[in-house]
């Protein structure tokens, strides 16, 4: 095994560029998945089955098919429909949408875990429905779901390299580009491999601290 | 039906030897959980073939003694010997060898839900003692007959009542032909109407075998029936010991009197 520290040094500027893009994807993708997941969760609690059923079918479909193919779909099909986004935007939408079908389950479990007595108390106080949700149910549910959401953020981090397949230059994309130009495969791939392990380890430590704060 | 615990042992029952051979011995045994001392430099021994009952308030260390003997827990200090061989401190191999002579029946039965009643009983004789499957099954059938559950041998433990499960657990322990049988509050988890059936089986075993029994129980009538000796525990020490007639009718220690008046 020949390891070339010079190659590592040459790669590092590209690595930082890639890391920045990776984190950008992660932050935006997480935001989309948090919001969209909540929308799915609330829609799937509506009384009308004409809403519940399609929401259930779509999210089930998205959750059970590969993110990679979904990214291809968005990347090649949206322009055909006249919607042209940058690769990065497309990728963020794709990963956010994919993960929203997971966060949806987290929210649903969180909402169901709020004791029935809370609903009854809100009814007894004659709170309007919207107020019940925003002031009573969701604040309690969100507290419970933060750890699980955090886990999905960590999982999402590990899926960000898929955006490389639609030409986004995140960490893996940068590593591949560097490899092809300089014929050094080992160093850049190992650097980003270690980076992933380190980042997800730090993130899980952070999450555990957060969990202790939120769930006393 | 044969209920000999050891194929090779002559039944001592009558000889003077029965009263002299020491089978279990604890010397200066201490056990702490955190800063709570459960057993405090305890000394006591049990002779072969004797039935000894440990009584006392809960938390006084009775169950801990059984768990130490079963090697489910380790003492912090002291030595434990069984049949002249050291159980603690001892190398793992020796522990395993000695452990084969000790059986235990648990408060919560601890039957294996993934095995049928029959296999719960035959598994250990086959895999641990190397008994043939046929011999183990024959023995299991005898034992199930003894505990009155012959017709349930293909069922799962979950399909039986608590009392039936506990009788299976007794049969399972006996199938290993232990020299010592440890009984840890075996009726505490049972509905009141199921207690009698289990106790009857144990009385039967106590009468008809030479197994040494160490019993932790709150059933004082049962203790009086089967025991050769009763040990009263308090705060990790034996404060009074003697034959049941003596302990139950004429206790010397105030704590014993208080305890008995509370439970009887």
């Amino acid at each position, binding site marked *: 095994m020949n390891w070339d520290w010079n190659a590592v040094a040459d790669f590092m500027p590209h690595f930082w560029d890639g890391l920045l893009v990776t984190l950008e994807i992660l932050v935006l993708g997480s935001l989309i998945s948090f919001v969209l997941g909540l929308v799915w969760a609330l829609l799937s609690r509506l009384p009308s089955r004409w809403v519940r059923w399609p929401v259930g079918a779509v999210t089930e479909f998205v959750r059970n098919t590969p993110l990679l*193919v979904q990214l291809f779909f968005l990347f090649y099909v949206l322009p055909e429909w006249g919607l042209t986004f940058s690769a990065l935007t497309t990728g963020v939408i794709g990963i956010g949408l994919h993960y929203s079908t997971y966060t949806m389950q987290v929210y649903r479990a969180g909402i169901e875990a709020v004791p029935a007595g809370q609903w009854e108390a809100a009814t007894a106080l004659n709170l309007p429905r919207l107020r019940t949700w925003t002031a009573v149910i969701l604040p309690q549910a969100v507290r419970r779901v933060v750890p699980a959401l955090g886990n*999905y953020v960590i999982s999402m981090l590990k899926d960000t390299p898929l955006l490389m397949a639609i030409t986004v230059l995140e960490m893996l994309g940068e590593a591949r580009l560097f490899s092809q130009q300089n014929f050094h495969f080992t160093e850049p791939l190992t650097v980003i491999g270690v980076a992933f392990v*380190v980042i997800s380890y730090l993130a899980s430590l952070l999450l555990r601290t957060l969990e202790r704060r939120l769930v006393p | 039906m044969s209920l000999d615990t050891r194929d090779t042992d002559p039944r001592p029952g009558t000889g003077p030897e029965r009263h002299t051979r020491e089978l279990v011995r604890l010397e200066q045994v201490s056990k702490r959980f955190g800063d709570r001392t459960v057993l405090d430099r305890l000394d006591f021994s049990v002779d072969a073939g004797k039935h000894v009952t440990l009584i006392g308030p809960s938390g006084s260390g009775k169950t801990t003694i059984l768990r130490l003997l*079963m090697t489910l827990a380790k003492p912090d200090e002291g030595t434990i010997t069984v049949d002249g061989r050291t159980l603690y401190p001892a190398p793992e191999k020796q522990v395993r060898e000695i452990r084969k002579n000790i059986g235990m029946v648990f408060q919560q039965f601890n039957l294996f*839900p993934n095995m049928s009643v029959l296999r719960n009983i035959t598994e250990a004789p086959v895999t641990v003692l190397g008994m043939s499957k046929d011999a183990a099954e024959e023995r299991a059938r005898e034992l199930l007959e003894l505990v009155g559950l012959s017709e349930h041998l293909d069922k799962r433990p979950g399909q039986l009542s608590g009392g039936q499960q506990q009788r299976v657990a007794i049969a399972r*322990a006996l199938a*290993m032909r232990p020299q010592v049988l440890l009984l840890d509050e075996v009726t505490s988890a049972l509905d009141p109407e199921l207690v009698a059936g289990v106790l009857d089986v144990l009385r039967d075993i106590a009468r008809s075998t030479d197994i040494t029994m160490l019993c932790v129980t709150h059933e004082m009538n049962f203790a009086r029936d089967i025991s050769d000796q009763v040990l009263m525990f308090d705060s990790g020490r034996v404060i009074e010991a003697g034959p049941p007639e003596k302990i139950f009718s004429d206790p010397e220690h105030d704590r014993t009197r208080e305890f008995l008046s509370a439970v009887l």
Partner: protein
Amino acid sequence: MTSGLWELVLQGVWVTIQLLVLSALLATAVSFVAGVARTHRLWIVRFLAGLYTEVFRGTSALVMIFWVFFVLPPAFGWQLVPLWAGTLALGLTYGAYGAEIVRGALSAVDPAQQEGGIALSFTPWQRMRLILLPQAVPEMIPPFSNLLIELLKGTALVSIMGMGDLAFSGNLVRLALQESAEIYTYVLLVYFVIAFLLTRVMRGLEKRLKAGVGKAPAPRTEKAAAQPAGAGGGLR
């Protein structure tokens, strides 16, 4: 779509299924070895198994695939057939998640069962084989079912390495037809059907295994979300 293009897609399905089966087998083996090793009484064994799970769960499956395809061959001088390289990368990555499932299910078995085993003088390995695993395995099936779906989705990653799996065949057909929406919809549907069938099979398996330990199967709602944070919940 012409029949020639359909044939391409079918070949892709076949490669995907081969890859799925092989990497699922490897992942299962790795899950049990590493998961059981994490309960070992020697700390060094526990440590090594823990290190493996943390590292492989920490990294990205796609990075692993790149590593196996590009770093292993020059570093160790062996060039793997793409199918085996894909199997190795996927099996090791998803096996690390599986190891957590196995460890979790083993530690969820009532400790009293261990004590029952000790009281009957079973050796540690006999307790594992006769008591713990038979009771833990049925509990592992629902999370393993989720993991299997994740693995199916993960197999699409090898298309980036040019392996002719289902996702790759989709790209080829797109180039030939310039009909992205249609072909990708088909490809996604095929993945969905495979996932659906796998879920069905796993649920049947769960039912049978749970009957074996005298339990009813768990209600199927919210399996993914109901898992404790950190176990299988953070898969993807």
